């Protein structure tokens, strides 16, 4: 492998990996707080990307405003999902919520296609988006750097909030024991809705940036990328935020290597094969807690 190819593999891994990690972190926060395994992340990512598209193309707003609008809108939508639907399923079996999120993803996809149609739409370009920067010999475009920066900043903000703010402490408390949290006068329903909103916001951010990196948006491909959150969190550990970070980078690395040697068709299946291997060898993932293995 030439150094040029290696360089672009590395940059690709970092970009994809940080976006995967972002979605993964949102997933883990939701899972730890509410126990919900959300199969609808991908659909939310797609919806977010389309919102940016519409904002930019039809409303002609600057790109960064479109981003914020989309992230906030999807975040609110996530909260509404809890209030309207998942709040009633508190205490239900895990598999009921799994099926509910699966159904939700189907309906979201249907709505997306109804509004925007099924064809591939090009995403607006970042000014100077194609210029190549070289950092330590590794080539990055401006879009790449935006992707990595956005993910790192968002994850850092989330970590900070979880560690330092009362809301973050309350979220971690609910994740430990919602019953005890209620006894300590924590508004458990509010925290759950917040966890849904944050998780949706992460998915939205990742979806927007991903569509910029890819250059286009269509109903299927980003959604498929969204499902890759599962290899990420299984490898990392379904209840570990740090695990999501490492898992994201690992899955992106596997995908890039596979793409180079075997071609695009095998990228997804091998990521899932890695998931299966992890389930066989160490069900709780690299950083997950022991309790998780018995779900």
């Amino acid at each position, binding site marked *: 492998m030439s150094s040029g190819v290696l360089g672009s593999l590395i940059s690709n891994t970092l970009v994809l990996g940080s976006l995967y990690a972002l979605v993964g972190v949102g997933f883990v926060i939701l899972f730890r707080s509410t126990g919900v395994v959300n199969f609808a992340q991908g659909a939310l990512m797609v919806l977010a990307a389309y919102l940016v598209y519409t904002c930019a193309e039809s409303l002609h707003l600057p790109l960064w405003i479109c981003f914020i609008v989309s992230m906030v809108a999807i975040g609110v939508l996530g909260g509404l999902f809890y209030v309207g639907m998942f709040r009633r399923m508190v205490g239900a079996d895990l598999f009921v919520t799994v*099926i509910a999120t*699966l*159904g939700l993803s189907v309906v979201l996809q249907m709505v997306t296609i109804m509004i925007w149609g099924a064809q591939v739409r090009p995403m607006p370009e970042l000014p100077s988006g194609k210029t190549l920067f070289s950092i330590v010999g590794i080539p990055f475009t401006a879009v790449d750097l935006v992707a990595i920066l956005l993910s790192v900043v968002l994850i850092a903000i989330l970590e900070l909030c979880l560690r330092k703010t009362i809301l973050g*402490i309350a979220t971690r408390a609910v994740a*430990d024991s919602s019953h005890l949290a*209620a006894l300590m*006068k924590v508004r458990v329903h509010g925290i759950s809705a917040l966890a849904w909103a944050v998780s949706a916001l992460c998915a939205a951010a990742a979806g927007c940036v991903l569509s910029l990196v890819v250059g286009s948006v269509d109903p299927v491909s980003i959604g498929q990328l969204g499902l890759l959150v*599962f290899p990420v969190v299984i490898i990392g550990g379904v209840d570990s935020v740090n695990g999501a970070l490492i898992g994201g980078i690992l899955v992106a690395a596997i995908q890039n290597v596979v793409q180079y040697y075997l071609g695009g068709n095998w990228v997804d299946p091998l990521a899932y094969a890695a998931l299966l291997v992890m*389930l066989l060898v160490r069900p709780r993932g690299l950083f997950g807690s022991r309790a998780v293995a018995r*779900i």
Partner: protein
Amino acid sequence: MRERAALTRQKILAGPVPAKRLAEPAGWAVLVLAALWLMLLGSVFDQYIGGLVIIYAVSALGLDWIQGRAGQVSIGSAAFMAVGAYVTATATEWHVPTLVALLMACAAGAIVGLVFGLPALRLRHLYLALSTLALQFITQTVALQYETSTGNFAGFSVPEPNIGSLTLSGRSLLVALTVVLVLVTICLRNLYRRAPGRAWQAIRENQMAAAVIGIDVNRWKLSAFATSSALISLSGGLLAYYTLRVFDDTFTLTFALTFVAMVIVGGLGSISGAILGATLITIAPYVLSDWTNDLPSTMPLASWLSNNISYIDNGLYGIILLLFLLYQPRGIAGALAAAGQRIATWIGPRERPVPAASLSAAPAPVHANGSQAPGPAPVLAVRDLQLVYRTGALALSSVDIDVRPGEIVAVLGRNGAGKTSTLRAISGFFRADRVRVSGSVTFEGRQIVGASPTLTSRRGIVLVQERDKVFPSLTVNEHFRLIRSSAAAQAQAEEIFPPLRERASSPAGLLSGGERQMLALALAWTMQPRLLLVDELSLGLAPAVAKRLTASLRDFRDRTNVPILLVEQNVSAALDVADRVYIMEAGRVVFTSDADNVSRDTVLNLSFGQR
């Protein structure tokens, strides 16, 4: 022996006809009528859809097997159908007869099922779902590769099926498919009604308990997965012979999800339900399209609907699935069964089992002198409290307890006497706990019986639980921040319990039992309770530590005059601090007195019984 006879003589009946037995014939009647109509009166298009319904029903029955009976979530329907379809297509290229090709499809499905079921053995729900998700993606790619490498870029074409010299198509094919469905149904019914069905149901309810009962859980889970996969692969082979084409684009994740919808909508764990669900999900888009076309164009939504109908059709099953999950999670079969139950109750007089409470003879509570003296109105007044858990276990039957202002009241008794249940009944239950509480619990004059913990904590009732008293991943400091404690309050707590200052940045999960109890108490005091409930303070603690903690409880009361209700197994620690004492036994109060008047012998007798 006399009592035993009396129990059965209470004529505890099961109910005239178990409700499920009413739902099954109803479901079958509908299906048989529909099938007859289809064969005799349906158009060619209707018959085509009917054939699809039958094939999908076979697949749904397979999914219901693994999901509804054995309780494992699987989104592998599309993948297994693909396996069956491709094996069949390949077999026909080798000129293998129809029935043999279908058998090969089953075998292939069983093998893949075994391979994918093995890693999922140790794990449960979530991981089997993910395992089958992985299978889905892997299968799609393998199928695509298979097609391109054999030059079948547009998929495989499949010749018409035949039995001997008879070629099956049109109506004869439909009849053959119906025969297959009937045979499958008979075999499944045989399995479900006998030992295998019981084993799978036990595994679905509680795997560990099933293992303890003697069921080889792994063997049964694997057998369920392998055989249900074989059945789903059979339906894939049937689909190949029906559509005469096998193309990788058919077996997508969305396709797999339609089967999940079928099984949920039909109702898990019901054969007729799976078939009804398959029917509903398959024909819904067509029915909706027809209906939309017939709408007068003047209706407001009509044009929007007809423009978007194809998108809606694609996502319709998702909408139906969500609606059922929210409003009728037991599916059509469940709705029929519930309706049948109501009809049955209406038809025949049904003697309900006599409530357990009325069967027991209650000894009247024994009052020692002193406690009857009139005093200030109680802060907490519990009257005739009764608590029945969802299982029917009677936790409390008529409990009366008073807590007066500034008092420390101890509730003693051995395990199972109902002490913890009493505290929980006072502090409140979540709806998910599903208990039945009756009687009266008044706090500061207001009725709180049956309230939720959120409400009672807002009124100032603070409960320190026996287990789960602190958050393992939060540090001591973070606990205080969580309850919005002032720095002064935290400092005061650290004065009383110096270890809290030393361990201020340590996660609570790393504290010792005594330190956790100190933290829990300190938090409770900081929340400025109007009534403090403490459950088993001394549990698991060395006697000296327990004594220190109970003493600190008394100091707290002396400082703040907050009344305390203390549940304890450790009699001496409790008697050290309590003003009054209740002793509970088998869900009721059997003794109450001032603490000074409780003799060692009384407690011994009540704990160890009449000797």
